[in-house]
């Protein structure tokens, strides 16, 4: 019985392959975007976990020098000779052009068991080769595939090691990095019981894993962002499915009636419906997973680039396949299809056996329902505002965004309806009036698709406003910060001294750039020494400052800190900050420091020299007359003999910084476009669904003498009107979203706030895009209408009779 019902139901799809394609495509798209985003997130999280677990970094404390410099070898030996169980690590990065490789040099003989260093076993593994020059590098196959710096020791591939990194013996790392002192010491979990606490035995600073910058934590906001995008896309995809299933239901009214009249029990019919939906969504889900994997694989290098640029987190640029991920995505698709099909199933269940087999427009406009929706929408919007203004976490920030979206979507039908009614008053002629009235009449059927469009449009406006604001601020900030015309780097301190002597008569100013890596307010950071020079005074805007901050800085009476440090440590001007043990200074002001996830502080160069006597400047910012810049740069290379990459023009730095920036938001742009595409598709399915059902409304107009071609044009116009109105509504929503992203989410996620700027040109482009999408979506139904056979229109009257 069920089989007969099922084969009957499926015959519908045989006759309407286009509809079948739409349903499958809708589900597949929804699954693809959602699962693609999930795949990226899963991959990234796995990479963080791997990285965190490398050398047991997630569990083991470290000993570091307070000023961030390497731990003297003698300190390590002294601790070992005193009986403490610590193990040295020399880490650093090898760079050559674009190629970079992080080296982790360990001492396997003293490494804590928790360090879980990769297996140094194997048939062809030669232990002596690991310990003795030239040594061995262990890395994943993907890392080994390069690009890698030249002149590396032999490479052996291993599993589960962070991308872009190699494990090697500490001796090999010491030779390759030219560093003999350990970067830090790993502390065994269990220390001999008879010894006094480690803190009494050394001046080195003990750092617990949670005090170190954790990429998983830092990048959480980024992944939340991706997830939100994925969910949005999934929801939009479900609109498509809902429309397709609804259409199929309407078209199969007659079939259903016949089946029921032939004695098919309702239960069997519903089972058949359920099975049909399950089979279709299973198939669509599989297609979607393949598609999602492809999307994720295509986006992965961009995501890896973004995360490296923003947070310094290393990800593999490739994607691995996880069956759990695929199953979860499939389950999500089935659940989504069930949700989308529930309405049709419900109506089948309620349909009287002898109901007329005539399709009819889905819902009659129900003013009461729209008013109820509007009430909920207003409540959601005010909740959104409350969360945005008073919420203080990232989750609440996203909650505010979600409420904004939902509220705006629910408000859409009544707003459109009101706008159309207002327009109707001003309409001239019966045709214009009919067009607007008919558009209003169609609203309930199209509202879901229009909501999808609204969401996509406002997400687009919001995100592009945010990115645009970010970019404008960033560029302005770069212009301010990078005022010096040239930046030069000396290889050695001796060369630095010769360089200063050479440059002093040839430039307006030689400003040393010197810094020490240290811990600020418990977080890794850097202290910079800066000369008192108008270059800085005039160009560094302070977000908040004590009076005469620059003068106090010049006399060594205080410190400037970046916005990130101020935000996470809750510091304001007037508070004090310890920049290194024993040196505590008053905070004079706070400067913006976009794109830097770490804490930073600036002191005067004299104070820096006194505080960190071991660090001599080897980098210099040069003030030169702009016209003389090129000549000096080439003189430095040719006459003085500096390597080409040691002399950098400020325009080069700006270009490089902007490249990083653009890459950071590459993903956002791609996802934006995809969402808009899905929304356009939802509109298409909505219109297709309505097309057949609207014949009873169109037939009388046709009978009054309006040609089919004209009716088709009206269809297009109607679609454009709706899209344009939706766009108008999306504008405030998008701007509100942008504000939330900039003032709420950005602050929570990155620790800096950006001034918002509006880009009318972008909005204009988006409007054009939205109208184009509406046009494309309406083209097919309009074309069909233009070519519909008059007999079908006539039949409408026959059926009525």
């Amino acid at each position, binding site marked *: 019985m069920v089989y007969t019902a099922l084969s009957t139901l499926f015959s519908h799809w045989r006759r309407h392959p286009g509809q079948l394609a739409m349903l499958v495509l809708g589900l597949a798209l929804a699954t693809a975007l959602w699962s693609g985003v999930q795949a990226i997130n899963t991959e990234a999280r796995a990479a963080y976990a791997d990285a965190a677990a490398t050398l047991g970094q997630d569990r083991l404390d470290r000993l570091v020098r307070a000023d961030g410099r390497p731990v003297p070898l003698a300190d390590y*030996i002294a601790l070992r000779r005193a009986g403490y169980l610590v193990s040295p690590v020399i880490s650093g990065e090898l760079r050559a052009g674009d190629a970079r490789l992080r080296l982790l040099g360990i001492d396997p003989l003293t490494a804590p068991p928790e360090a*879980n260093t990769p297996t140094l076993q194997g048939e062809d593994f030669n232990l002596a080769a690991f310990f003795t020059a030239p040594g061995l590098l262990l890395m994943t196959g993907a890392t080994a595939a390069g690009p890698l710096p030249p002149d590396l020791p032999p490479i052996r591939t291993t599993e589960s090691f962070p991308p872009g990194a190699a494990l090697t013996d500490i001796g090999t790392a010491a030779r390759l990095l030219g560093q003999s002192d350990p970067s830090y010491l790993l502390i065994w979990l269990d220390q001999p019981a008879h010894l006094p606490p480690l803190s009494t035995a050394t001046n080195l600073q003990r750092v617990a894993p949670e005090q170190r910058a954790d990429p998983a934590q830092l990048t959480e906001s980024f992944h939340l962002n991706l997830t939100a995008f994925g969910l949005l896309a999934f929801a939009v995809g479900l609109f498509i499915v809902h429309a397709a299933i609804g259409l199929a239901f309407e078209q199969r009214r007659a079939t259903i009636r016949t089946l029921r009249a032939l004695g098919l029990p309702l239960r069997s019919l519903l089972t058949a419906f359920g099975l049909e939906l399950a089979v279709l969504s299973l198939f669509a889900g599989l297609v979607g997973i393949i598609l999602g994997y492809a999307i994720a694989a295509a986006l992965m290098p961009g995501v890896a680039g973004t995360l490296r640029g923003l947070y310094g987190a290393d990800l593999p640029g490739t994607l691995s396949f996880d069956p759990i991920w695929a199953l979860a995505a499939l389950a999500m698709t089935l659940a989504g299809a069930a949700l989308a099909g529930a309405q049709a199933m419900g109506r089948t269940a309620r349909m009287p056996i002898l109901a007329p087999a005539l399709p009819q427009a889905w819902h009659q406009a129900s003013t009461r329902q729209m008013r109820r929706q509007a009430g909920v929408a207003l409540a959601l919007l005010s909740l959104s505002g409350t969360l945005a203004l008073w919420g203080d976490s990232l989750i609440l920030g996203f909650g505010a965004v979600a409420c904004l979206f939902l509220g705006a979507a629910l408000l859409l039908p009544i707003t459109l309806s009101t706008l159309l009614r207002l327009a109707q008053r001003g309409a001239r002629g019966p045709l214009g009036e009919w067009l607007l009235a008919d558009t209003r009449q169609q609203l309930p059927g199209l509202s879901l698709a229009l909501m999808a469009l609204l969401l996509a449009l406002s997400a687009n406006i919001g995100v592009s406003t945010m990115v645009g604001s970010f970019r404008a601020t960033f560029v302005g900030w770069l212009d301010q910060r990078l005022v010096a015309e040239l930046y030069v780097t000396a290889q050695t301190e001796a060369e630095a001294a010769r360089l200063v002597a050479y440059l002093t008569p040839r430039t307006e100013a030689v400003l040393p750039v010197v810094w020490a890596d240290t811990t600020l307010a418990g977080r890794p950071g850097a202290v910079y020494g800066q000369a008192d020079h108008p270059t800085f005074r005039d160009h560094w805007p302070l977000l908040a400052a004590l009076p005469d901050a620059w003068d106090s800085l010049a006399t060594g009476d205080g410190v400037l800190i970046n916005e990130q440090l101020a935000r996470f440590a809750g510091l304001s001007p007037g508070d004090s900050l310890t920049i290194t043990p024993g040196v505590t200074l008053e905070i004079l002001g706070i400067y913006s420091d976009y794109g830097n996830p770490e804490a930073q502080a600036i002191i005067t160069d004299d104070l820096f020299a006194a505080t960190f006597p071991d660090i001599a400047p080897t980098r210099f910012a040069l003030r030169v007359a702009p016209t003389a810049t090129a000549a000096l740069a080439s003189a430095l290379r040719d006459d003085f003999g500096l390597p080409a990459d040691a002399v950098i023009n400020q325009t080069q730095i700006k270009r490089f910084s902007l490249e990083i920036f653009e890459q950071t938001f590459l993903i956002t742009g791609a996802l934006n476009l995809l969402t808009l595409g899905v929304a356009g598709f939802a509109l298409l399915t909505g219109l297709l669904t309505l097309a057949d059902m609207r014949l009873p409304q169109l037939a009388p107009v046709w009978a009054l003498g309006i040609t089919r071609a004209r009716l088709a044009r009206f269809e297009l116009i109607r679609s454009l009107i709706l899209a344009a109105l939706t766009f108008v509504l999306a504008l405030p929503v998008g701007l509100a979203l942008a504000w939330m992203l900039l003032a709420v989410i950005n602050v929570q996620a990155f620790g800096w706030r950006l001034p918002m700027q509006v880009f009318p040109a972008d909005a204009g482009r988006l409007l054009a895009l939205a109208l184009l999408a509406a046009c494309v979506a309406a083209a097919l139904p309009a074309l069909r209408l233009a070519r519909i056979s008059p007999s079908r229109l006539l039949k409408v009257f026959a059926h009525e009779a």
Partner: protein
Amino acid sequence: MKLSLCAALLCLIAGHATAQGFAGLGSDAEGFAIPQSPAIFDFPTDHGAHPAYRIEWWYLTANLTGPDGTAYGAQWTLFRSALTPNDATGWEASQLWMAHAGLTTPDTHLSAERLARGGIGQAGVTTTPFAAWIDDWSMTSTAPATADALDALSIGAIGDGFAYDLSLTASGPLIFHGQAGYSVKSAQGQASYYYSQPFYDVAGSITLPGGTIPVTGTAWLDREWSSQPLSETQDGWDWVSLQFDDGARLMGFTLRDSARAPFTAATWIDADGTTQSYPDGALRMTPHATTQVAGRAIPTTWRIALPDRALDITATALNPQSWMDVSVAYWEGPVTITGTHQGRGYLEMTGYE
């Protein structure tokens, strides 16, 4: 990795405490110096490390007694293993070090292990003044400058749940095994340089979970270095150092061979330090009773006979569970001697699977 690495490291170090079958020991000594006969020693230099040779150790075992007469045993060993026959300093050094400490009571046996690389000061041996160390474990000469550096030593080690601190004073000369310190290890001619200081009187303290106990006793230091001590088919050895109540001492070992009869050697040491070396076959060591230790049957009672000295004794483990639970495990503990002679000593057994 730790364990596998240690295993591999031990392969290189091996020898005194490990079984055959480990890589490196049966192979040719490429680039490494080979012990030559006659052995010519130069002290105090030869108390120090010999980086040109693949393996070397400073191996001390002590039979101790507490105030209540309870017998204890202590072991302090520093192994050196060269990856290449050079003596570079800094991280480039290719000399690896491993140390074992053991403390045995009649009912418990505690052990610990340390590993280190050479060249950076974490472990090593100096000759003037003599000191051998790894981390906070050390063996330091307390002898006057005129005496042999090994005449008086201070040794200490700390492990999980135990520690000891012992002062050693020698009452006799250094002893050279085999042909004046050239000790043959197989019929194929593998050999090592091997000398001992078997005449130590000991005073000091041991620390157990229950507290610190003052002890006195005797101790025996072995010094041995080589590049190729075992032949390919030798799969383990049983070694004893025995101190008889009459002041005489005996060193003996049996190298078990899977392809031929075991290879034995012995050195009889009179109370005055006069020695006699015995070639293969003179010493007979026969397992008398076994104990299940760490899942394997280990002979913890031995019948030992040296007919030339009318010696026929039974050596019984003080604690049959004297299992050195380190990277590559072995049995090492004090024994009590009964039979034609009485006394105490140490037994070491390797290569029991």
